[in-house]
Every structure is written in C-alpha cells, then in structure tokens.
C-alpha cells in the first residue's frame, strides 16, 4: 500500500496536477475520443490517483490508447487536466525496465510508404523511455 501511495504521489508530481480539484462531473470522459478503447476511463484515472489505486492504472490498457489530444484538458471545468495524469502514469511504466510499449524490432512491420516521420518520433516519445 505504501508503495502505491508513493506512486500516487509520483503521479501527482510528474503531472503537476491536483486530483482533488476534480468535482466528478465526467466531462473528460464525455469528451474522450478514445473512450471505447479504454478499460479505465479518464475520470477514473483522477479518482484512482485520489484513492492511491495506482497499480490498476499501470496495468491498464488505457495508457496506450490515450491520444494526448487534450480535449479533456481543454474542456475540464476544474482545470484538473486528466490527460496529464494519464501521461504521468504512462511515464511511470515506461521508465521502468521493460516497460516500453514499442520496441525497435516491431517497427518495420508497422511501416508503409506514406507514413510520416513525425508519427514514428511521436510514438517513440509516448511509448518508450
């Protein structure tokens, strides 16, 4: 539990977000374009950090589905910025050994003729240490 609490503190620190500002309106979840693919929804990320349930977040599929499109950040009425919390949780995972979601080996199979460089760079930044 104390490890979990530490991790929750780390998420707050890395994200710079105060999850207690949340009033639980669900606008982040309402506006999320990746909702259907997420097992833990954006508003739950905020409440999980509040309750220190970080392990569930670290194991969540949602980490790799969030688009960083900032719709939740822009529309949150409480300036909680759920997108930053998701990113911080993702950071905690990729910064651990073996936490990368993308490896160099799998890239060639994913490429096509038109694929712009920025796609690779961005995915690298988000998915890899």
């Amino acid at each position, binding site marked *: 539990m104390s490890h979990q609490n530490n991790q929750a503190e780390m998420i707050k620190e890395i994200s710079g977000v105060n999850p207690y500002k949340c*009033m639980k309106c*669900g606008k982040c*979840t*309402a506006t*999320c374009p990746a*909702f259907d693919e997420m097992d833990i929804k954006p508003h739950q990320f905020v409440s999980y950090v509040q309750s220190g349930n970080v392990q569930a977040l670290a194991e969540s599929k949602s980490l790799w589905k969030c688009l960083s499109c900032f719709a939740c950040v822009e529309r*949150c009425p*409480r*300036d909680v910025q759920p997108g930053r919390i998701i990113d911080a949780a993702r950071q905690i995972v990729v910064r651990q050994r073996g936490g990368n979601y993308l490896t160099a080996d799998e890239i060639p199979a994913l490429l096509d003729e038109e694929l712009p460089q920025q796609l690779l760079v961005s995915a690298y930044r988000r998915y890899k240490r």
Partner: protein
Amino acid sequence: MQRIGVFVCHCGSNIAATVDVKKVVEMVLLEPGVVHAEDYQYMCSEAGQAKIGAAIADKKLTGIVVCSCSPRMHEATFRKCAERYGLNPYMVEIANIREHCSWIHKDMQEATEKAVILARAAIAKVNLNAPLQAGESRVTKRALVIGGGIAGIQTALDIADAGYEVDIVEKTPSIGGRMSQLDKTFPTLDCSACILTPKMVDAAGHPNINIYTYSEVEKVSGFVGDFTVDIRKKARSVDATKCTGCGVCQEKCPSKKTPSEFNRGLGNRSAIYTPFAQAIPNVPVIDREACLKFKTGKCGVCEKVCQAGAIDYAQQDEIITEKYGAIVVATGFDTIKLDQYDEYAYNQSKDVITSLELERIMNAAGPTKGHLERLSDGKAPKEIVFVQCVGSRCSDDRGKPYCSKICCMYTAKHAMLIRDKYPDVNVTVFYIDVRTPGKNFDEFYRRAVEEYGVNYIKGQVGKVAPQPDGSLLVQASDLLDNKQIKMKADMVVLATAIEPNQGVRNIATMLTASIDTNNFLTEAHPKLRPVESPTAGVFLSGVCQGPKDIPETVAQAGAAAVKVIGLLAKDKLTTNPCTAKPDELLCNGCGNCAKVCPYGAITYEVRQVNDHGIREDRRLANVNSALCQGCGACTVTCPSGAMDLQGFSNRQLIAEVDAICR
C-alpha cells in the same frame, strides 16, 4: 497613567484550545498601567459583561482591553458594556486573538506569545486613549432603490408601506426585471406575470413611490442619513405626461429589425418600443441608435401618427439631484456570455439555447407565441437535452467558481412543463449534482423524475455536434453506468451560469460599497448582517449580493426594507467621534489637508490664537466633525504634524508599533 483592566475571552474552545489564556492573563499583569486581568469563557455573554462591570467599579478602571474575537464582531458590544458601567465607550480596545491568532495558528506556545503581543499593543494604545463624545447627524427620510426588478419593487413597497418616500431608479424602460421574462415559477408553477404584474401596478400607484425608468445613478456623495444622488433620466423622446400608451407608434414604426432585449434577441422590436405589453410605465422609448429619424433625419412616422402629440425628438437627458437617508442596491443579474463554451455549439446552432431563452419560447407573449419549436426550422422537437452547470462551478478561466443555485430547480420545472404539455417529447437532463435545498424543492425535482418520466443522467456533456440533418449529436458521459452516451437531440438547453448585472461595479464604486472578485456585493457580515453593506446606509437586496431564487429574493428584499425603515425612523444618528482634529498651535494654514479630504470637511478660518502668550490672528484648518468620516488622509498630508485623528492618533499607532516590535 490609565488604570487598565484586561479581559481575556476563551470563546469556548475557539481561543482557549490554542492560546493559553491563563498565561496571557499572567503576562499582561506585568504591563504598565494594567491593574486588573482575568479570563472568562464567554466575555460577550451577560455574565462576562457583568465581570467587566464589576471590575470597572472595584478597580476604578479608566481603560479596558478585551482580548477576544475581531473588533468587527464585538467592539460595539463591549463599548456599550463599558458605557453601561459608567466608562466612556471609546476607552475600550480589542485585541483580536481569535481571527488573527487562535484560528490560524496550531502551536500553542507560538499562538500564546502572539496573543500576548497583540494584547500589549492594545494596552499601549488604550494607555493613550481619550474619552470621546459621539456627535449627531440628521436623517433624510427618503430612500433610494437602485434596480426595479422583483427585489427592488418589493423593497420599495415595504418601505413605502411603512410611510416613507422611496424612489426606484431602473435603467431599462420598464420595471419588472428578470422575473418579467419568466414564464412559470418553481416550485408551484404559477405564472410569473400573474404574481409580478400586480406588484408592479402597486408600486406604480403607491403614493410614496416614485419611479424613474430609463434612468441611471450617476453620482453619489454624502454618507448614511444624508446621501446626495444625481440621477440621469435619459431622454425618452416621448413626453410621458402626454402619452396615452395607445401603441400606434410602435405598430407604424418602419424600423423593426432591432433584436428585442426582452426576448433575449430571439425576436425583433421596433425602434420606438415598450419592452413588453405590461410595461410600467406604459410609455415607449425611442432607441436613437435604431431610429431612422435620428439616423437619417427622414421618417418622423411616429410623430405623425401620435394623436396625443407626445413624440419629442428634441428631448434631452435630465439630471435630477435628490437627497436620501438610505440606499438599497437591487441591481440583479444576467446570464453569462457563452462565447467561451462553444463545445456546446451555442454560437453554431440556433437550436442550442439558454434556459432564459427557453422561458421566452415557452411564454405565450414570446417569439413563438408559447409554442415549443426549434428556432432553426420551426419544427416541434421530439428529443430535448438539458445540460446543467454550464459556466457554473468552474475553476478554469472560462466560467464562474460558484454554484448559480437556481438552475437545478428551473431545469426540473422546464422538464416537467414540457412533459406535461407535450407528453410525446423525451426529456433528458445531464447533471453533476442535483441541488434542491428549500421547502418543497426536492419533492418538486423528484416529481419530475417519478411522475413526469424525465430522464436524469449523472454526467456532464462534453460536446454538442450539429449534424447535416439538422439534429444535434450530444456526446456525454453516464457516470453511474460508466458509459459514453451519444444521443441525437432536436434541441439542447444550457443551464447558463448567472452573474451580477453589468455596471454593478460602477455602482459599488460610487457607493464605496465592497464588492467581491465575482462582482457580488459584500455583506457586512455573512451570517449576522446579510442585507447590509459594510458601508453604513447602503443595503443589499436580491441577486446583487449572491445567487438566489424568487422566494429568497423577496425575503431579502423585505429584510433590507426593515433595515432601511429602522434607519429612517430615527431623527438623528450618532456619528463616529473618531474624526480629525487639528492642533491650532502647529497649523500653519497651508491648505494641503483640505485638498485630500474626500468629504470637503475641512475649511479655513482666521482665528486669534494664543501662542505662548503671543496673541495673533492666524489662518487655521477647521474640521467639520459632522462631515469628517475619519479616514486620516489629512493627518499624513499635514506637513507640520498639526492634524491628528482621534481614536487612531499618531502616538497611539506608534505605541502599537513599539509594542509589537519590542
């Protein structure tokens, strides 16, 4: 040297839990002049005051320090107490060891040390206090009410019924305010006009009430009991004494394309207009921005058709100067602009409307004659979505941090009325919390759910996307089912946050009344003096003080009226004796003090002085203590140190500084 008694209050545990009151008593007894010190559970109680009285008699006290709550709370109480036991009330000083000490510190040693220092400062000050006598000032037995909505009307009626004259100043062409725009009212569903119009008629016909519509307060001077106010009566371009209110001018006016303010821009009005049929006074106004005669010089139709000859294009603004004993602010509210909330597509679709616009649509006198229809194509909606908390409870920079308080109830009302009149229409309400405290309020909301089948979903709407087929795709969350909802609606109604009316800041500045960061006027005490402004003689009525519904507004309007009546019933008011006083031997008559005095209380006169045996005529500053409000600006400006402020003298304040820095 004074004989000082120090009284340390426990305030139950409010002070005693953090400040070692016994220690404070022990320490203050060491201070010069202190001949008595004691502590007690509640100094402000009858028993506590009796202790003070006993000590005044037994110890022959000449000054008192009470270590307790803020002087803004109980200074008056302890002054009265001293007076009752034969001590001049201005020989009392308060050391604020609650708000400024025990409530904000946790460490007992630290808090006790600070309490002792605050007590020392108060002792040092009271050592230099001198008995003061309050003066008297007169009371003009007439009240001014700024704003002619339900708050202003009710306040004016109550004051007038008590026998005092009241003027209402309303900036629009008619009294009635927001309430006149509403269709039905919660929680009884009676028709707004049916309960408001009789009150408007009462006010207009009341012998003690005088109404200035299309008018604004322009300048305020003076103080409680004796305000002088300039009112700008804007040119109506219609002679109210001749107009019969027949309405022909409005009918014939060729300029009919101005959005109607009364209908929230959903319909148009003519350039010469009354805002609504039951307007009071029933005298139209020419909107000079829209009028062809004023814009091009041609037209003049209204003048031709007016049989009473009431049209007067040459009419000028008029300034009326009037004296008042009390002023009530009842300036009301407006809904916020939704430009910052375009995710709800308010600016993109005519079928996304505010709740106040829905009131107009549902009203028989409104732009759709009371038919529920889409403004884009006139079709009857089958699916209506209500969105709560639009711009309320926002801590970002787009909205307001507070709850607008009325939206949960009026949304339940709208939902119920629609389901009642159009049972085939589906109504969905997206809410964050349903807040319905109030008599019969929660029952009302529950009826909407249980009896009228209104679908309440807990979750906010994220986006409203207009579709090519004219419908609106509402994307929202359902937090209880942990789902994202995408539903088509024909109409979306936004429960838009309310904010104090534009211009209230300007009025607050004129009245020197406090205003908060949200532009709500501040009350003198949030619990115990909710209808008084901290500025004496200025009272608050309605939403200008904070969000409230009609029953609360009417209650507060009555309360404000009672306060005004209490003031006007007095023939004289005691004035604050803490006024400026020049030392005639030091004054050189330079004139600087008069320049900085905001009240014109300082004049100069040539008087004979006896300066250590030399008698000569000198030009000297003279303070009119009835006008002086005791700010102290003159004392600092005076180059020779002749001007001082009684009760806050240079020596007293320096003694406080010394005691703190010791």
